[in-house]
């Protein structure tokens, strides 16, 4: 009846379908990008041919909803510039950060935000922002995350939190997202592991720790060792009172927890590492000697003689590096830099994203712009009830223009309006 956490994780869809090596991840993103470019190219060709035909007959009516702007000026056809993989990633990551703010605005629980961001990242592993508008997908992803995390929220109430947005627009991409998620909704987060580890460390500090038998240290010995943990790895021994130790453990927890809520969900950590590896790496960043001590209690002494321990440490070092690469943890983001510098950096970033969004606008897949329409078309085809009345079509066209305009303004730091 022994059933380890390891076995639990191996059976999870996160492990089966959503864990990769860095190389696999890069290869898949390159494939996705290539496929999207080819699709847009084909669509552009089709549209240009159509337009030429139309200009002969003088019809302008079906021009609406085109993602590829009319670049045929006076018959000169400019080549479309497509997003690179790196640019796609920048856009998706920007959207993911926006979702954190959105989550704060709506007061979603942390699991909802973290799951919604993973949905977004998973979606764009097999789809390109050139195909599906990332802002719409991100909003819907987090709505879906509310459902899968059992956090009750109606589409209507959620939509009302955005300017000019209907429940229909929020729900339109739901099937696309569910399909791209390959019908897996469970995301394993590192939060619970961190809490468990924290409680264990607290127990150890109080002389109530339990080490595996092979380890051979008593609870009292572990406590004594803990009270002398250096501040830095390799630093001098540092005698702490039990209160000081407890507060140190709590400080480490708080810092690690904040890393889990930002760097861990915004980088590729979930694709590359297990939840335990992620929380341990975050804890290493927060307090290396404490984490190293904690890890050592899990292996026979001395831990360095265990190949498993050394392997684990190597993995954690890579994961730690990945987390530290996130700008929320970069040194320039800390007290060293002045407020002005920070502001300048933010502005620079915003400008960079702005330019990418502009670029995206010129290379979008024209077939996939209006998701509400697309969604209806799919349903319509299925039920064969064909025609839409003139009135409805007109209303839909207005809606489409409405949210296209609104999408343009969203990309700034602007947040949804208060309910």
């Amino acid at each position, binding site marked *: 009846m022994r059933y*380890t956490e390891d076995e639990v994780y191996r059976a999870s869809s996160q492990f089966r379908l959503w864990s990769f090596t860095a190389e696999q991840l890069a290869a898949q993103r390159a494939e996705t990008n290539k496929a999207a470019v080819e699709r847009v190219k084909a669509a552009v060709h089709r549209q240009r041919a159509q337009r030429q035909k139309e200009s002969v007959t003088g019809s302008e009516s079906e021009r609406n909803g085109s993602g590829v702007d009319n670049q045929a000026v006076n018959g000169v056809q400019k080549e479309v510039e497509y997003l690179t993989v790196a640019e796609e990633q920048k856009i998706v990551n920007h959207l993911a950060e926006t979702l954190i703010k959105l989550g704060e605005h709506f007061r979603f629980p942390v699991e909802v935000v973290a799951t919604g961001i993973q949905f977004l990242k998973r979606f764009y592993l097999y789809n390109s922002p050139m195909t599906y508008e990332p802002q719409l997908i991100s909003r819907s992803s987090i709505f879906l995350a509310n459902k899968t995390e059992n956090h009750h929220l109606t589409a209507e109430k959620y939509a009302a939190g955005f300017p000019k947005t209907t429940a229909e627009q929020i729900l339109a991409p739901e099937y696309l997202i569910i399909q791209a998620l390959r019908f897996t909704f469970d995301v394993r987060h590192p939060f619970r592991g961190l809490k468990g580890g924290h409680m264990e460390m607290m127990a150890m500090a109080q002389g109530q720790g339990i080490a595996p038998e092979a380890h051979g240290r008593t609870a009292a010995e572990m406590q004594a060792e803990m009270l002398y943990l250096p501040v830095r790895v390799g630093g001098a021994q540092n005698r702490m009172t039990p209160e000081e130790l407890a507060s140190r453990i709590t400080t480490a927890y708080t810092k690690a927890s904040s890393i889990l809520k930002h760097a861990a969900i915004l980088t590729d950590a979930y694709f590359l590492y297990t939840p335990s590896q992620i929380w341990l790496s975050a804890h290493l960043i927060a307090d290396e000697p404490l984490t190293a001590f904690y*890890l050592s209690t*899990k292996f026979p002494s001395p831990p360095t003689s265990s190949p498993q321990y050394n392997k684990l440490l190597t993995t954690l070092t890579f994961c730690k590096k990945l987390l530290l690469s996130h700008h929320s943890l970069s040194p320039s983001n800390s007290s060293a830099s002045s407020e002005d510098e920070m502001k300048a950096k933010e502005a620079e970033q915003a400008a960079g994203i702005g330019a990418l969004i502009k670029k995206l606008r010129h290379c979008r897949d024209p077939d996939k712009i209006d998701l509400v329409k697309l969604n209806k078309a799919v349903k319509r085809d299925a039920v064969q009830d064909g025609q839409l009345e003139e009135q409805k079509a007109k209303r839909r066209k207005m809606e489409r223009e409405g949210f296209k305009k609104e999408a343009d303004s969203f990309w700034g730091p602007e947040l949804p309006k208060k309910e």
Partner: protein
Amino acid sequence: MALSPMDSPRSVPGPAKTLAAKTKALAVQNAASSPLSSGASTPTEGTMDLAEQMNDQTRKQFVTGARLGEGTYAIVYAGHYRHDPTRLVAIKKIKVNADYKDGVAMDAIREIKYLQELSHPNIIKLHAVFSTKDQNLSLVLEHLPLGDLEQLWKNKDVRYGGADIKAWACMLARAVWFCHKNFVLHRDIKGNNLLIAADGNVKLADFGLARSFADPFRPMTYNVITRFYRPPELLYGARYYGGAVDVWSMGVVFAELALREFFLPSETDIQQLSVICDVFGTPTEETWPGVSKLEFYTPPSNPSSRPQPLQFWRARFGILGDDGIELLRAMLTMDPKRRLTAQQVLEHRYWTNAPRPTEKEDLPKNGGGAKVMGEDLKRRGGEIESGRADKVARKLFG
């Protein structure tokens, strides 16, 4: 607990896994070829995106046949793999609920979410999921042709004894233990959600009400679990609860198998509470600390019910033996904090004491008609037929 050497995260080969292994996993999982290997760079199939193509491939793998039945939120069809008509499946097509304005139904989301994660011989297997053109989700499930545990005890053509009950109850207990180990509450355990496979295995199905219970501080709804199987804490309106709710339901199913009759039937939620109190006594702060703080709790009126004595249990559940009765009563403890956990249920000596549970191949089956009867005659003698307890129960509740 959070990390032992055995559980060392590095021993999970996730990041280091080979492409081949990954591809295989994908093929098994959704029976669609892996996007990593299938030349995604040639998006020739019209305007379908990669995910749509994968979905299409999955859908084409199955053939839908006759309608098997209809539940509250889905219609179930017989089906089979296109390439191998002998490999049967059940295809559960989620109904569109026009009243639900928030997209894909929550039942479907929950069922898919949890079945994707739970892989266990006593939990129904989800082979694949696909969506059809009209955007209906279909779950491709393991085909379980021999009915369910409720049909089984209701079918008077099927005779069974204590060793058989032990085998069925044990499979149920394993399924519940596994769910809880994965921090999943089923919240609708009952005889007709326990389906029977061709090989006699019992499988827990219908995860439409399931949810995770990892966070003990998030309130949950008390309006779950079919009434006869609903534990007293939910009837009293508890919003913070855990695995104990499923253990109660499991106890009621166990009792029904022995009685061959509903154990705690009622017409209303209020009546359900009084039926429970008639058997277990009206709870008080002494017998169940904290009970008086639950929203719908009312102190016992005079005269309040007292728990039934051991004699009551022996008269009705003799077929389970004394240790079986002890286990049953421990699963049906009013105070959820003192009720056995799923782990403790499995650790009970009832399972290892004589008689040994019947091997699943030898279990009596539903719907086998003459064949089942014939096999039944060959069974060892000395088994108690549980019809007697049945009549007592009917007198009590009828």
